[in-house]
């Protein structure tokens, strides 16, 4: 582009002496949001693989979702994970008022519900494997297990994070670093719940589970 001959007035700013520090919290949360995008792509890859494998040929004589999963148990899990997200989110209201008790209480309730969710999921997989439909039996089952276990591992990582945040908040309170981390944790937790909803709708309901 051809620009006009540059003109310099007394008002032209050449150096930024003020406002050099960048917004710490928003940079952290934006960066974490980008990480969640990459995580979403990991799940997209797994969902795509699942969609490809969701056919009798890949099931190799074993049942598909409608013969393996229970829609009502899945619904219970959905409510548990949504309840967990609700607790963590209500707790995070404490960040506005500096209410440490509310933040930690919300995290504790959310963490317990998250652990219950994982226990539900893992016991479902154990029942499936015990009935002869383990992850090694067919390509389809491998995909189903990979999708569910990847999600459960994310939830488990979130639990570790919740535990770590208890230590951090106890030691440093709700300073900028901990606020940024708690906001990221809330995003992470909400994202995993959204992934679960997609799993429930796509794998359970579209798959014809009863």
């Amino acid at each position, binding site marked *: 582009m051809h620009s006009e001959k540059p003109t310099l007035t007394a008002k032209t700013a*050449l150096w930024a002496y003020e406002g050099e520090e960048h917004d710490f919290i928003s940079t952290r949360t934006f*960066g974490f949001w980008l990480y969640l995008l990459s995580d979403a792509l990991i799940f997209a890859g797994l969902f*795509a693989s699942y969609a490809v494998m969701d056919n009798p040929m890949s099931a190799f004589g074993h049942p598909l979702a409608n013969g393996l999963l229970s829609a009502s148990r899945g619904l219970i899990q959905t409510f548990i994970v949504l309840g967990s997200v609700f607790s963590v989110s209500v707790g995070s209201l404490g960040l506005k008022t500096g209410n440490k008790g509310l933040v930690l209480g919300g995290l504790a309730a959310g963490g317990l519900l998250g652990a219950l969710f994982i226990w539900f999921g893992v016991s479902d997989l154990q029942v499936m494997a015990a009935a002869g439909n383990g992850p*090694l039996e067919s390509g389809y089952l491998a995909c189903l297990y990979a999708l569910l276990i990847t999600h459960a591992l994310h939830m488990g990582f979130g639990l570790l994070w919740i535990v770590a945040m208890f230590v951090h908040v106890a030691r440093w309170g709700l300073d900028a670093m901990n606020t940024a981390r708690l906001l990221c944790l809330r995003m992470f937790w909400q994202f995993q719940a959204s992934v679960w909803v997609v799993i429930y709708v796509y794998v359970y309901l579209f798959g014809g589970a009863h």
Partner: protein
Amino acid sequence: MQVAVEGPWSPLLGRLTLDAIPYNNPIIVPTFIVAALAGLVAVGAVLYYKKLGYIWREWLCSVDHKKIGVMYIILGLVMLFRGYVDGLMMRTQQAIAIGPDSPGFLGAKHGYLPPFHFDQIYSAHGTIMLIFAATPLLTGLGNIIVPLQIGARDMAFPYLNATSLWLTFAGAALVMISLFVGEFSSATWVGLMPYSEMASNPGVGVDYWMWAIQISSIGTTFNSINIIATIVKMRAPGMTWFKLPVFSWVQLTTAIIGLTAFPILTVALTLLGLDRYLGTHFFTAGMGGNFMLYINLFWIWGHPEVYFLVLPAFGVLSEVVPAFSRKALFGYPTMVAASFSIAGIGWMVWAHHFFTMGMGPDQIGFFSAATMIVGIPTGVKAFNWLFTMYRGRISYETPMLWAMISIVLLLIGGLTGMMLSASVIDYSVHDSVFVVAHFHCMVLVIGAAAFAAVIFWWPKVFGFKLNETLGKWFFWTFIAGSVLVFVPMFMAGLAGETRRLDYVFNTALAPYMLWEEAGVLVYLASVGFFVLMLIVSLWQRVPAGESPWGTERGLEWLTRTPVPFYNFAVTPHVNALDETSWRREAGAALRPTRYVPIHLPHGSGLPFILGMDVFAWGFALTWRIDWLIILTTIAMIAIVFIRSFDRNEGFIIPAEEVEAYEANINTASIFAEQPKRGHGLVGEAH
């Protein structure tokens, strides 16, 4: 439920036995001796000059984006040499092993490499050149230049940046160690499926390949997050989106590709890993496995990866061509739009890598047309560079020579790419060396642009220019080698030579093979000139002055030369797209008159330690050493935990100290040793 492995396994060493060391191989043993001697000399020199502390504090623990960039580029150049030697070995094999009467040496029936060894070499060549040479070179350039171009002190997440670097190093180290311990994959750089499965490939080669790529691509994903956050959040005041230099724009599009494409590779390789380690059936031939799923997943990453590499090259051209044409870049907004179009369309063309593997005509039509559309934004870019040169006052310094040949190579590679995008042509030349010659032209675009960038920005980082005369010798020998290798390769491809031949059965191809061998030897001369250029320039170290080329345009040239470790003494307020040339024309100040304290992040040894731990983890997984896998996994989690308790928020350089540095800029160079600085000075800056 681990898969049972072939051969011996012990709890202490896993699959590792003395037989894994190829001590009787006549090619690897001398290589090992040379590498070991070079390593000993390097370590000895560090100890003799008592530089161990300096290297640990100033480099291995550094979170400075420029030092990280320099280390990326060193890694890239070393791996580029390794990849070149692989190429030399392949060409030499094909130049000897032609026809049934060809001689055999060193235990090979024809040529000097047994087929299994040859297969490992081309697999390593592809993996190294794309993942461990081109990617670190371009990532390193982005690391150095982007924060300077946007007027930032560092990347948005300096610690994460160091972590990305050391993860890439860990992956590269796995590839390198596979040369001396065990074997590398023989299943090509893409991982042929189901050949990469345990049933047909029971050795450790595929595991080495898989973990090396997996580890370094996680580093690349992190780096992409960092680049996007840096450009979105850290721009200097006054730098609106349409004052962002084109190189930073393409780094943004590249990082968006990196962020979205690399996770797909992570999925593909993880599922392959589950197959190989736990015995699932994602990609096996049987039990409901579907190997086309792998091929699709791989290329859904693989094609965007190609644009991940070529877009930064386009960005370099958009900086170098205006500088040496003494004109503003022609069509800046269309350049930005074209970068985003290329990045977007890059997502819709993956299936053109396997037109012949059972697609219906509808899919072929879609992917064929989508591929052709890529030519439109690429053409826009090529014409913009030409119009930038048109009526410019062009001078032919080496960066400009590299930039111009890069455009020529883009034309050759692009037009042959258009031919291949037509599926009817692809059906007849697929899997021939015509395809190989096409994509080598494209990666030479990247290579040429990377050399242009290294030479162009070298004085910014080092404070002296590279020797122009030797640079031109390097350039012309490199180009002569390229012509001699790849023109015959196009012809041999059209004559019907297929890819990856350890033995060329058709003796009519002999002249092509010999021309290519001549070319690859001319390349050897160009490697020599490159090394000579480095040595002579380092020896002479002629100070480049504040304006090394006399024609610089972008904001990065507003820093002092060599660039100090704090980048800008005072953050500039940006007024124009080409800020430096704008200030020169307007007669505005290039240097501040008053200084303020500077806040910088502290270094940390944890990223380096994490990288070493991940390397040990990859090695343990490859050799299935269970206890080491568990130990290194726990160490990884522990390092993340320890880091979360590190509340060190950097240090402050007082204004007087900045002034002293500015008065004697060499003391602030990234190579100058800095005093140890205390912690916890945050708050005093305001």
